[in-house]
């Protein structure tokens, strides 16, 4: 039909309409098969953990499991806090103040995801060049605020969302 080359025909419309409906239908069908791999409601329901912190003495830490990952809860001594705050930000690979990594008025409590930001190993406590944590996998050194100081890890250890339910209980998540 060379004389009607540019004209849109009924058939063009039907083609476009059919393919559109088909594509939407296919997408709607594929989505459940992708979404089934996401964490389901029963996994999300376990997304908070409450921890009793009344037995932790200054200078000691405990590790709890939250969402299948270890969380370090460290009750820091005044010396350690002072040391963490004395560091100038220029020295840091991922500059962040110690004050920003703890809750206001709860300076002694460091609550931190115990996962090295390099490739996900669990760092060892009270080890390394900065008296904080040391990751045995690839040699990342963290300070008493959990900030990366030396080694291949790109950023500081992550602070999860948490709150003090009362003076003796922390709710993570």
């Amino acid at each position, binding site marked *: 039909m060379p004389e009607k080359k540019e004209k849109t025909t009924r058939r063009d419309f039907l083609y476009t309409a059919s393919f559109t409906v088909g594509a939407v239908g296919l997408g709607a069908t594929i*989505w*459940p*098969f992708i*979404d*089934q*791999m*996401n964490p*389901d*409601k*029963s*996994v999300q329901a376990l997304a908070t953990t409450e921890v009793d912190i009344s037995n932790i003495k200054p200078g000691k830490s405990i590790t709890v499991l939250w969402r299948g990952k270890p969380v370090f809860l460290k009750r820091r001594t005044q010396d350690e806090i002072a040391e963490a705050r004395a560091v100038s930000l220029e020295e840091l690979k991922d500059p962040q103040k110690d004050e920003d990594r703890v809750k206001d008025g709860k300076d002694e409590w460091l609550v931190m995801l115990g996962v090295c930001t390099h490739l996900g190993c669990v760092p060892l406590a009270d080890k390394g060049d900065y008296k904080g944590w040391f990751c045995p996998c690839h040699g990342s050194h963290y300070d008493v605020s959990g900030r990366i100081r030396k080694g291949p890890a790109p950023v500081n250890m992550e602070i999860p969302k948490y709150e003090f339910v009362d003076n003796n209980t922390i709710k993570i998540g």
Partner: protein
Amino acid sequence: MSEHEYQPKSKVGKWFNDRLPLLSLASHLTDYPTPKNLNYWWTFGGILTFCLVTQIITGIVLAMHYVAHADLAFSSVEHIMRDVNYGWLIRYIHSNGASMFFLAVYIHIFRSLFYGSYKSPREVIWIIGILIYLLMMAAAFMGYVLPWGQMSFWGATVITNLFSAIPLVGESITTWLWGAYSVDNPTLNRFFSLHYLIPFLILGLVVLHIWALHVPGNNNPVGIDIKKPSKDTVPFHPYITIKDLFALLMFMIIFSGFVFFAPNVLGHSDNYIPANPMVTPAHIVPEWYLLPFYAILRSVPDKLGGVILMFSAIFILLILPWLDTSKVRSSVFRPIYRQFFWILVIDVLLLGYMGAMPAEGIYLLLTRVGTIYYFLHFLVVLPVVGYLEKTDPLPVSISDPIMTGGANVSFAKRNDKNI
């Protein structure tokens, strides 16, 4: 294979095709000459491919969430139904998909019986098809065991006990199948493994089934040999692809009807009770698609006899191409056989109904009549009718009756509507 030599246009395509002729294969599948008179009963091959792929995809997903352990299987299925994102949908597609798969395969098999598609030169296609059907039944049975409900457990117990009917070694074989002294955790574990394996065996056989089909080409409603390619054929794409797609969409509407509006209507509510080795359900029945064979099993008052007869009912299909002595393929031109065909359809439906009823009184009597007729059809009716029947004259080509409008046309059309 079509005879023309395919050459890719691009240099890269040619380079690749010389090393692995995938493009030649694609070209063959696209241009594959198909009889132009294929009716909608010929769309079930495509529908069955869709069913197989659907079962494999949904099955792989279910295996991501299912736990094959006697203590955890039932709860893991409930977990899929309640917690997993869209788990209910995927499981209902899988469980109803099995029923849809069998619905389509029965239509496909009876299509073949009506139009004589199993006859020379298509015996190998037929035999591979029956092997696929056998594997489908094995896969369906083992899949039904996996939710570890009451029907799962007792279905597994009954079916595995069939093998105990074998003289001398029966008991040892049954114990070997169980991996225990009853259906137990080892049984569940191996059934899961095999249930995952079988669909891929089926997939391999489907490739052979289609390959074997593409050697002589499709049979057709008139059942005569045709020249390929010729004015009697159309290329597979787009003519058959679009027709198959349309039929598939119609099929998916029925499929979706079950999945979304009656997902449990084909199942048995007892399977939502966790397996209990101490209590057998009052009324134990297999899934609907196995009922005719279940009826044949129960029709014989002897344990070994029942088992032999049930397996014979399936294996007799393997020698069907040699039991049918008629040279004419399509029932359209076989006035006597056509009537026996419909009696067989009714007989199988009757056996299916009887399989769901208690094996006593009038039901048992009818089951026995149905069983005897089933074997009579294959062992007596088919060979004898083939010799005695006076078939209607065959057209010269499939275009011929359409062009000349001979007497056979209205005849053929009338019958196509009936089935």
